[in-house]
């Protein structure tokens, strides 16, 4: 009885504190107080939907489009890598993109990576090897910020997983550059700050990255026409691969595991029913 009485008193006390000091003032403010201020940029943000037709790897049965990944790699190498690192990916990983070992050796050698002079022990640079990771364009974060108007270009290895619906996000971001609707901008007093760029798919619509892609910026080795949309889609696919190289292997393993489990669970269900058969009341 004491515990119940104590419980009732404690329950009423904590509810009273909550209702009188938090709920009522908050509800009053919510009902009659000023509406919370929103940044004018919210008026311009648009939710993107990714490329038309989606990606080859979408869905539970999706596969990599190897040619697309190779094109995406070309875009990274010729455009993105000027500012963005890819530090968790090694040249040897390119094997998954359909390159032979000789091609990977040659490709790695076209990159310059930090090394140590074997004679003097001093820091130097050398051609890359398959075991090396993609080198970063800046030696450290301070250098990256200094070269980029105080914004640090993020590493791209995991970008497709570090944003919600990342593959589509990367595509949308590439395609979202433009101008704010001038009539609307005047009305809410919105102006893109100096040194930033308007992008309707970036959360606060002001992004530090200048528009990176323009039509025919790269010349694709396979002859595909390099429109901005094509390059955006290719680089988004490539960065999905860098973020989750095991994606397709994972799903294939998953189908195998699910198939086995469905079979095993059916057997388990049947043996459960058989073992219990004698115990269940007979239906009338």
């Amino acid at each position, binding site marked *: 009885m004491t*515990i*119940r009485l104590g*419980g*009732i008193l*404690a*329950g*009423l006390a*904590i*509810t009273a*504190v*909550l*209702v009188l*000091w*938090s*709920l009522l*003032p*908050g*509800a009053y403010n*919510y009902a009659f107080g000023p509406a*919370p201020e929103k940044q004018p940029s919210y008026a311009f943000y648009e939710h993107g939907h990714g490329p038309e037709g989606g990606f080859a790897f979408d869905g*539970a049965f999706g596969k990599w489009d190897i040619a697309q990944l190779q094109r995406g790699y070309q875009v990274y190498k010729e455009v993105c890598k000027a500012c963005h690192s890819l530090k*968790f990916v090694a040249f040897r*990983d390119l094997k998954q993109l359909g390159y032979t070992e000789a091609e990977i050796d040659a490709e790695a050698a076209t990159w310059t990576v930090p090394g140590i002079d074997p004679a003097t022990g001093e820091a130097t640079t050398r051609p890359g090897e398959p075991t090396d990771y993609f080198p970063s364009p800046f030696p450290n974060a301070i250098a990256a910020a200094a070269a980029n108007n105080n914004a640090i270009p*993020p*590493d791209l*290895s*995991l970008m497709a*997983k*570090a*944003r*919600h619906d*990342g593959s589509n996000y990367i595509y949308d971001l590439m395609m979202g550059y433009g101008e704010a609707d001038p009539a609307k901008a005047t009305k809410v007093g919105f102006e893109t700050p100096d040194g930033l760029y308007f992008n309707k798919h970036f*959360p606060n619509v002001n992004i530090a990255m200048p528009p990176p892609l323009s039509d025919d910026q790269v010349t694709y080795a396979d002859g595909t026409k390099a429109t901005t949309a094509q390059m955006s889609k290719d680089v988004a696919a490539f960065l999905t691969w860098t*973020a989750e*190289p*095991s994606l397709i292997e*994972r*799903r294939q*393993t*998953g*189908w195998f*595991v*699910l198939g086995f*489990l*469905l079979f*095993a*669970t059916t057997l*388990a*269900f049947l*043996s*459960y029913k058989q*073992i*219990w058969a004698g*115990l269940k*009341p007979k239906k009338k």
Partner: protein
Amino acid sequence: MSFAWAKQYEPQSAFTKWIDEKLPLPRLVYNAVGAGYPVPRNLNYMWNFGVLAGFCLMLQIVTGVVLAMHYAANGLVAFATVEHIMRDVNYGWMLRYAHANGASFFFIVIYLHIFRGFFYSSYKAPREMIWLLGVVIFLLMMATAFMGYVLPWGQMSFWGAQVITGLFSAIPLVGEPLQIWLLGGFAPDNAALNRFFSLHFLLPFVIAGVVILHIWALHIPGSSNPTGVEVKQESDTVPFHPYYTAKDGFGLGVFLILFTAMVFFLPNALGHPDNYIEANPLSTPAHIVPEWYFWPFYAILRAFTGDLTIPFTGIVLVQAKLLGVIAMFGSILLWFVLPWLDKSPVRSGHYRPLFRKFFWFGLIPTMAVLFYCGGAPAEEPFVVLSQLATAYYFLHFLVILPIISQIEVPKPLPFSITEAVLGKDKAPEAPRAGSVDGGDLGAAPEGSLQPAE
């Protein structure tokens, strides 16, 4: 510990006889989860989750021990070693996704297990100790899961550690030094990461120890059942093996299908994208949210927005942050007194019309609202909603349960489990040999029915 009619372990071969004399481990297993443990015959699927929780614990320990072989708890390399596991370790991605989703599924299973306990009053005498140990396990699980989430050293890891240890700074006088002592510094860094790793490795084995006590305590009175009527006679029970091993085998299969579907097809759906960004003390994420299984309690924490003041004087008695911390811990700690708050002699919610209404139309929607608001940004209308839900949460357990257990008129209970299952029970006319003394069969049996070992 068992009913009089429980089967006895009889070693057959010379070897098992020899083992049984020296170390009767097979006998222990036989009596714990074998044919020697008589279990009510009417358990529904809600009784599958105890075994599943045990499976989850083993899964987490096995995957976790292997992950620890490839992980380094150092702020400089922790994030990179997780990527090393994902990319270079053989099937490392499978281990890590199984471990991360395994934590989520562990909590799904545990929440169903706990709410089974709420509805069928599994906490009531003679099973209070099982319940108390269960609450201890739940608290240990929360601590373990929180520290595990810090280890990948992503943005949510770092800021989650900052926010959760920051709760201790709300304690008057000792709060700030306490937070610094817990973290080993002014902000989460190497010291915090290292001790979290050490404790994250240790606590699962502590949990395993308490689980053994939990199961031991369960075997004293035996399992509860959906009617809430205690076992009276042999026809009320079946041996755990093969009846419930078969049923648990099927349950495990269904669980594994759902679990592997998440691991192989949606491994990041329950996580937060920000945790794929390396920890950065200089950049705060837009919304810091804990893992989904903490959302209801996070909503209670954030429901207290106003300081407790003396009106019209501006004197602050208790700060809002401290109120929230007290309420959040209190919301779980009150489960410890639940067996003594709810005094209704009827256990099962099926026979408690008033209790059942408050359970389905009060507690369950409240938990849903708290869950949703805990994951939502701290804006209206989520704040007001979580305040209403928090108020109901405390009223439900502390005020409504004690009162309805006093005023409720329960429905008539079946005479026995056998009657509940078959519609009739011959026992009232002819008591079986080996059951209770034929006297007072209608009364709830006393402890004398289950002599302790």
